[in-house]
């Protein structure tokens, strides 16, 4: 039974992630990404980590992808823009991404040589996860937190409009408060 569910959702994850990359319409790509993330969440649950599975759905499909759709609709992008329009620094970003991915792959291969610790209920439960995050992996955890804080401040700075010159009429809305 578990094998059947695994196969079903693993196939679904792979197929829908292909649709994400290949579909011309960004809205359909985003909806396929929803299916992908949902299937991966099911795989987490199958591995005995319902906590991570629920968080995956709550954060990624429930919030982040909705923001993707929000941006797509706000900008009204219904067709994929031409692939030739290269962004500045695209190559550097691609190389960096490939390096990180290669490093992770290398680590995986090296790690696979020695036998892994068996996955216990304690290890994937909320308590076990929290304990290892706040003791063994405290430094990376804090660094990630700092990174997110920097990203939030950066986003705020980018989004903020410079103060408008000239007198403002009291009682009227400032431009930021008018709905998008």
């Amino acid at each position: 039974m578990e094998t059947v569910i695994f196969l079903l959702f693993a196939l679904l994850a792979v197929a829908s992630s292909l649709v994400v990359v290949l579909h011309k319409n960004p809205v359909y790509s985003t909806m396929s990404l929803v299916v992908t993330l949902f299937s991966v969440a099911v795989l987490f649950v199958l591995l005995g980590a319902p906590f991570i599975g629920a968080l995956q759905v709550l954060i990624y499909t429930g919030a982040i992808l909705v923001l993707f759709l929000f941006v797509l609709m706000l900008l009204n992008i219904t067709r994929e823009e031409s692939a030739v329009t290269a962004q500045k620094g695209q190559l550097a970003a691609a190389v960096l991404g490939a390096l990180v991915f290669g490093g992770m792959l290398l680590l995986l291969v090296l790690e696979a040589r020695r036998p892994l610790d068996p996955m216990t209920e304690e290890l994937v439960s909320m308590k076990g996860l929290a304990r290892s995050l706040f003791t063994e992996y405290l430094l990376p955890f804090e660094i990630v937190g700092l990174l997110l804080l920097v990203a939030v401040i950066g986003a705020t700075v980018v989004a903020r409009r410079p103060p408008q010159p000239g007198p403002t009429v009291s009682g009227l809305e400032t431009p930021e408060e008018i709905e998008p």
Partner: protein
Amino acid sequence: MAPSLIATLINVAVMLGFVLTVVPVMVWVERRGSALIQDRPGPNRLGPLGLIQPLADALKFMFKEDVTPNAVDKPLYLLAPALAIMPAMLTISVIPFGPDLTINGRTYPLAITNAPAGVLLFLALASLGVYSLVLAGYASNNKFSLMGAIRASAQMISYELALTLAVLAVVIPVGSFNPADIVAYQRQHVWMFIPEILGFLVFLIASFAETNRLPFDLPEAESELVAGFHTEYSAMRFAAFFMGEYMSMTSLSALGVTLYFGGWSLPGVDLHGWIGAIVGLLVLVAKIAFCMAVFVWVRWSFPRFRYDQLMRLGWKVLLPIAIVNLILISALTLAGVL
């Protein structure tokens, strides 16, 4: 069939039966309730007090022509109404509706799923509800629908944050994400809304925004957006959005009752066995019915918020209160007060 499978099927039948029955009852309550508040008779032709009216409404929806405009994005247009009903049907599965029942030495929990991460599962599945609004608005290929969809996505994300933080503050003193444990904790101590009055207020306000009810029904705001995200829908597909709204109100009320008002339990009454199961279900339904009445009462008493007011309330008022409440509850729990 295995006894546990039969037990699960019975649980599914009870809970889904309840959620689906709510819809016609709520149609009547909403129409009569609005009439009461606006001092007019309301539907009173069919049956005593107009009780048969929802049936007539349902028949009308079924026999109306289902118009699909030419310019819509067909697959997404057809998917959206289905997605409106799905989350509410799934989320109700984590709500316990009675004490564990022991038959022939085997114990059966009275909830469709007894998942250890139940509350998180509820929030995760409920967060998928926004897709039906967003897709309906996008696929309709209509300016007003699109405006509704954009509003819906921003509104749902903003209020989900405050809602989740309020719920987490309930989980901390209990020390478990399992709704059954939360009810058990409240049976031993007090109902959660007493220590967590701040969190409960945030939950209450955010749940109006999450279910798109007035005063936060900006995605459909009929005075400015025609009918918002469901402008282009007719007949049964429109009814699906209608049902989805009532069903998600029911499941969110069920969560609120479970988290803050002791779920199926009554203070000072020891419910167990078959009688306990039946009384527990009735108590839960009565508590949910009260919440639904509040939903109707608020809808017909308050004017709609303006969009910027809505955003400001979400981010600058509710979210800070939810964070303060979370810190306060954590400190109280550490100090051993809760």
